[in-house]
């Protein structure tokens, strides 16, 4: 997460990763959301795998970077390189496909294990336009989401339903998490040095300096 003051107001930058089996409609979902909102200033406006969106929520600017992932089983192992440093994850399943819901559960387990509770999770049942073929019950999905501290949403990329709400809600939650973290940091800033204990050590080397600290061109 990066929050920086720019032009007086605060700008939040969040990274959101999209996970879910192939064919559940991850890409259509995010394309719907970012439709006609391609950022021309980007070096290259590439396609639908990486998208950005700028929002203004209660006077605060939010920059979203949305990372799509390949959902096929053979790419599963690459998950960690995509979700590292994410503030939020959108886990998509197809309501007509029980198996895709199972995959979401696997992702939830993995994310909680690797990233803990700091990541905001959204479980999304997509394709509600096909409700007559539904194979994952609303109750089951919602109670599962609640049990793992995630929020559940129903969307239809085809009908453009529920998508705006999903992202807005996620942004608000990520902002809350970021603010809580800041407060913690604010309180703890003066203590961070004093927290350095345990087996403490005498260093015989100069401290490593942050990479590119002095000359970063900007």
């Amino acid at each position, binding site marked *: *997460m*990066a929050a920086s003051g720019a032009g007086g107001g605060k700008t939040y*930058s969040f990274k959101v990763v*999209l996970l879910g089996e192939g*064919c559940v409609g*991850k*890409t259509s979902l*995010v*394309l719907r959301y970012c439709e006609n909102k391609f950022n021309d200033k980007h*070096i*290259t406006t*590439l*396609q*639908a*795998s*990486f998208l*950005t969106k700028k929002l203004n929520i209660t006077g605060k600017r939010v920059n979203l*970077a949305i*990372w*799509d*992932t*390949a*959902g*096929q*089983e*053979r*790419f*599963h*192992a*690459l998950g*960690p*390189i*995509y979700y*590292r*440093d994410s503030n939020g994850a959108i886990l998509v399943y197809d309501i007509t496909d029980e198996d895709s819901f199972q995959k979401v559960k696997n992702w939830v387990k993995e994310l909680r*294990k*690797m990233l803990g509770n700091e990541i905001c999770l959204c479980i999304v049942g997509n394709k509600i336009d096909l409700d007559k073929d539904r194979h994952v019950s609303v109750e089951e999905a919602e109670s599962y989401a609640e049990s793992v501290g995630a929020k559940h949403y129903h969307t239809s990329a085809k009908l453009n339903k529920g998508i705006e709400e999903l992202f807005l809600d996620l942004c608000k939650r990520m902002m809350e998490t970021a603010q809580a973290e800041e407060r913690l940091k604010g309180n703890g800033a003066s203590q*961070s*040095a*004093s*927290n*350095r*204990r*345990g*087996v*403490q*050590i*005498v*260093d*015989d*080397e100069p*401290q*490593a*300096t*942050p*990479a*590119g600290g002095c*000359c*970063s*061109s900007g």
Partner: protein
Amino acid sequence: MHKCVLKPLKPVLSSCLHQSMVRSGAWSQLKDNMAAAKNRPPAEMGVTDALSPDPLAIDKIRHKIQAMCKLYSPEKKVHRLLQVCKQIYTIMEDHSGRLFGADDFLPMLTYVLAQCELPQMEAEVLYMMELLEPTLLNGEGGYYLTSAFGAMSLIKNLEEEQAARVLSSQTRDTLHQWHRRRTMQRTAPSIDDFQNFLRVALQEQDSGCTAKTLRVHPQATVEEVCSLCALKFCVREPEQYRLFLTTGGSSQQLTPDSHTQRIKAELHTRDAPDTFHFVYRRVDFQDTSSQANEANDANNANANTTTARPETQSDLSPKLSLSLPQSNIHSVSI
């Protein structure tokens, strides 16, 4: 900065990386796997309905990547990489008229990189991942760099991929260490994050702990580390000293033929990493019963030896120091 530092450094770095890959056998393995991957049709690489580039287009992409390899600035390199990705997208889109997400793009990128057969791409990707401005890592450049890394590791682990469906432990460790070095949440990298260094603490009965960062090769045995410690810490009776690993509340002596860097890598990649320390001390060192005491000793000893702020030493009990959140402990773990 890039010009004055990286320009002269790039050829040296590249040749070092190349030589070390050749020495370890990774280079020939990568070459073999790449050649094998080249023979696979698009469908076997996971490409489904998108049409793949023809040989002419592959040739163009190969030239672009070769040109990218010659640049020294990580930003400019990433820019070229984005152009390559764009070209792949354009070809996909021209044939279908629709937009593609990662489900289609990643397999296609893997296929194209295999067709280009440029094993040097591996070192190039690492170079960019290490040196790209951290803020750019979460942007578009970072995304496609990540995809290139993913594609290369799929090609590299081509044979195992079918069976295991997981990244090799070595790739996982490399990633883990890279993540710790390059994550946005951390400001300064710790020297311990590097694979060729090891923090070892000398624990003495009367004077507490002193730690040094030693250069320890990945293959070095505990025995070798011990003789290095004897030298660096100037102990009088080196035959009386051994290397111990302390984790949580326990401490164990390491056998002379085990490998410290492998142990470290193993500990780093655990799901819930414990704090651990490599401690060099006398075999007859009196381990005053529990961990709390040990930490207490170390803490007290510290008061004498470090320049830590006085107020931090007095008003916090050792118990509190042990209940610190993992992240805090981790940032100072040796």
